[in-house]
């Protein structure tokens, strides 16, 4: 009798409060995709630190060559701007509103290499100051949101836009660059989570870090990103690029003729 009562209480919690808190958790952890400490094993986060450091080195060198002594204040302002984009909530069709990661639009406005450093600086500040994302996971978070996302967004934009000056095509390219960029970053994060039960298990075969296998991690991240969060990102990228093209098209890096060769 008592066992039934406990069971019913657990069920009640799962179906009522649990649903609400799960939504909060998803909003907090997955929209931002900030991987906290404890989810990734050392055999995952150490190589990702290495990969991120290598890309930061290349990015710094490229920007320094282009801007000479100006590169330090330029990158600092780009990072501050990148952070501020996340402070703006934008209404999306369906009656809700959300904020974007912004790495895609930063890549289109300032170039993918600048986006690498700007978004990385933001992620480092968020990890150290706000506790958003773990210290050990900085390399992984930067890899997903500051490397994969801006480059995929930038390449998607160029691929779809091509050499066309057709306004509709450019705007479609802008939406898809944000959409595909965030989705790619989400898949990358899901892959990192999903391989943990394979590469880091205890003597009893139990997972030591993120417990969800690829068969759960990828669909979970894919569904919410493909049907919600990536749409917000795409809308934000589209709206911003539309505004810039109308008012100050010369400021947009991705619309300059030589931008493709550099990236």
């Amino acid at each position, binding site marked *: 009798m008592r066992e039934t009562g406990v*069971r019913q209480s*657990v069920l009640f919690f799962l179906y009522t409060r*649990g649903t609400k808190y*799960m939504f*909060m*958790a998803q909003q907090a*952890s997955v929209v931002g995709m900030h991987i*906290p*400490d*404890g*989810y*990734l094993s*050392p055999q995952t*986060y150490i190589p990702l630190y290495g990969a991120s450091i290598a890309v*930061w080195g290349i990015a*710094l060198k490229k920007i*320094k060559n282009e801007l000479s*002594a*100006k*590169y*330090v*204040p*330029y990158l*600092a*302002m780009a*990072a*501050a*701007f990148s952070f*501020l*984009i996340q*402070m*703006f*909530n*934008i*209404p*999306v069709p369906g009656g809700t509103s959300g904020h974007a990661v912004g790495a895609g639009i930063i890549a289109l406005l300032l170039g993918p290499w600048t986006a690498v*450093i700007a978004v990385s*600086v*933001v992620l480092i*500040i968020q990890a*150290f*100051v*706000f*506790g958003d994302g*773990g*210290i*050990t996971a900085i390399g992984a978070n930067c890899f997903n949101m500051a490397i994969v996302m801006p480059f995929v967004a930038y390449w998607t934009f160029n691929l779809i836009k091509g050499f066309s000056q057709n306004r509709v095509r450019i705007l479609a390219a802008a939406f898809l660059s944000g959409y595909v960029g965030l989705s790619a970053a989400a898949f990358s994060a899901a892959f990192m989570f999903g391989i943990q039960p394979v590469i880091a298990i205890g003597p009893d075969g*139990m997972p*030591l*870090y993120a*417990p*969800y*296998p690829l*068969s759960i991690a990828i669909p979970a991240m894919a569904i919410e990103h493909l049907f919600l969060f990536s749409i917000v990102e795409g*809308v934000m990228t589209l*709206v*911003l690029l*539309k*505004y810039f093209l109308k008012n*100050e098209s010369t400021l947009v890096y991705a619309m300059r003729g030589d931008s493709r060769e550099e990236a």
Partner: protein
Amino acid sequence: MRNKIPDFLLCTPKRAQDAGERGTLRPSYIEKGIGHLSEMITTGYLNVGQDSGKGFFQKLDPRVKVIFLIFFVIIVSLKTDILPEAAITLFTFLLVVSSRINIAQFYRRIAGLTFIFGFLVVFPSACNVVTPGEMILPIIHLSHPYEFLIYHIPEEIGLTRQGLDCVIMLSLRMMNSLAISLLVIYTTPFHRIIKALQVFRVPQALLLVITLSYKYIFIFVKTVESMYLARKSRLVGMARDDEARIWVAGRIAHMFRKSMSRYEEVFRAMVARGYAEEVKLSDIGELTATDRRSGGFFVLAGIFLLWL
């Protein structure tokens, strides 16, 4: 004596999100934006490095604290048993107490973040659907097991001992990492943490970029907050979504122009003060005997925890 202020000015205005008497509360994009900003300023500016008291951690050199942070966060990630993680929790608690930090406020923040990012996200994995093992709390009994694509749903669904161990382990690991990070953050100004990263050979130019952007974020945040408040004070009723999107795009574009013009000004100011491409941060100074002793203590404690 009755004052001459009109009644409508004395009424407490209704919040926009309460406009609908029934149904779901849905804060507008303006309120969400203001909420984000105030939360950011509270957690990011008011809490960071503000504890300038005479506690143990406040007296330490930031280099010792940064080495402690990295060393212990790695130890936390390496431990795979509950007992050593519990020992780290106790050790961190003692450090927090000795640093005279407001314990209730400190652990409230950690508990909130651990609950949302750790426990809730991982809790479903305690079910035998994800982590098979010894069932300790059956929840649902189905008529028969199901096969759906690559998924197997067993006849009886419930929590397993192995799954709960995994949830406790991950939550503890996350709580410890957060406690160690926040201990350093609460007791050290941010620019000193970044400067101390020099001990790990992080390029000084990158450290300067981080320090500069941190300062400008808070300057610009004030501007963004003013934009939202100005919008809110001029808005009667609800704006159409397409209008709101245009407004947001315009404000972001304005911030873009502002940050680009500020970068030119900052560069000129830097050049006027002798900056010429080569970045060299000021020296932090020598470590004191207390710093060295504390560093040695942390190394010994870390080795003990690794061995445990």
